[in-house]
């Protein structure tokens, strides 16, 4: 056995899961699809006393449109969202990004909220959520659920605004806006690997909200001019991200990707 010993609980309700989480006083980890957590456990990078498996909670298993957003429950798998009828029209950015998330076997297990909870700086779904200005719903033992904008939810490498006793119950992706083009692309060593640079764009006329993953310690979004001045703005953005050299790529290569891939993504989406 690779992981360190832990107790395993498979609650049937949201309430039960939150009680277990609050009672564990920070010593528990929530297991959903397990496509990040199982690797972390197998490598003993985390040694929780309790693993709370939320995949048996039916009330957290849904995809529904509410108040201008596509709301995805915490037990919903990435493959289910990818197969959701009309996803390409309702949230085109997410439809384009999902095939880049791991491999089809991992998307069969991995959940949408789990990827957001893990908060890997190069992950696709957190980048989409940040670029679209989406929200994360957190529930603790007391009080009303907390709705946190993506911009303040992601706080650093694998670090979020979630308190130890809180469960992520839902993420909300804003629906596509009229006259807006959505584009996603990334560069990785192999398709399905962690992105060296991932880019998500929402292009409206002369403006673009450009989100960049894989460079800073979290997804970063900036509004740039989509036409005149784009190159200068991309260059400034690329430097502002504070890229560093690592085993996969140099900082200079990452800046080049932000500039070149960014320009390509934005100009190809705009009508001539």
């Amino acid at each position, binding site marked *: *056995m*690779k*992981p*360190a*010993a*832990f*107790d*395993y609980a*498979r609650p049937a309700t949201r309430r039960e899961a939150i009680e277990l989480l609050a009672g564990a006083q920070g010593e528990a980890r929530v*297991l959903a699809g*397990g*496509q990040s957590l*199982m*690797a972390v*456990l*197998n*490598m003993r990078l985390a040694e929780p006393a309790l*693993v709370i*498996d939320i*995949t048996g909670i039916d009330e957290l298993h849904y995809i529904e449109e509410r108040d201008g957003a596509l709301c995805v429950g915490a037990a919903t798998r990435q*493959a289910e969202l990818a197969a959701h009828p009309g996803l390409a029209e309702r949230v085109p950015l997410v439809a384009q990004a999902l095939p880049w998330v*791991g*491999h*089809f*076997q*991992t998307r*069969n*297990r991995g959940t949408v909220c789990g990827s957001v909870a893990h908060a890997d700086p190069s992950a696709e779904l957190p980048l989409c959520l940040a670029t679209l200005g989406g929200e994360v719903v957190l529930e603790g033992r007391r009080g009303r659920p907390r709705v946190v904008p993506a911009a303040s939810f992601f706080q650093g490498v694998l670090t979020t605004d979630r308190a130890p006793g809180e469960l992520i119950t839902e993420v909300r992706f804003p629906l596509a806006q009229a006259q807006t083009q959505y584009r996603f692309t990334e560069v990785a060593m*192999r*398709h*399905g690997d962690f992105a060296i640079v991932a880019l998500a764009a929402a292009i409206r006329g002369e403006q673009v909200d450009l989100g960049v993953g894989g460079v800073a310690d979290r997804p970063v979004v900036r509004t740039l001019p989509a036409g005149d001045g784009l190159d200068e703005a991309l260059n400034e953005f690329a430097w502002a991200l504070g890229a560093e050299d690592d085993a996969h790529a140099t900082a200079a290569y990452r800046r080049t990707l932000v500039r070149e891939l960014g320009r390509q993504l934005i100009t190809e989406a705009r009508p001539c």
Partner: protein
Amino acid sequence: MNVSLTVNGQAVTRDVDPRTTLVELLRNHLSLTGTHVGCDTGQCGACTVHLDGRAVKACSVLAGQAQGAQVTTIEGLADGGLHPMQSAFRECHGLQCGFCTPGMVMAAVDLVKRHPDPDEATIRDGLEGNYCRCTGYHNIVRAVRRAAEQM
């Protein structure tokens, strides 16, 4: 903890440590060693099995999460003789050392179920989560293409 599930059509119950992964349950508790373990981190695809009809990487699933589920491994794929995917791998020489083969075959069966007439790009794209360190991809793609014609 007790885990009850159906593996290759047979109901089984085993008392396992909660940290046991599905692939350990299959290999160590049920002696189904056809499913291999490569990376233990969900990257290489050697441990691919079908869980409730969908391909998953069994190193990244806890045995407890398969409670009540239907699991199919390489040993349970064929109903007497070889499955068309296994025959195609043999005919097209779609294996060299054979380590990745069970995972490749299980992933490919799910792929062809979803794409009954896959072109080469679809096959290569669909098998991106399965690594062959012999780099024998060319014949693997040919094998999947041939099997798709017979499935």
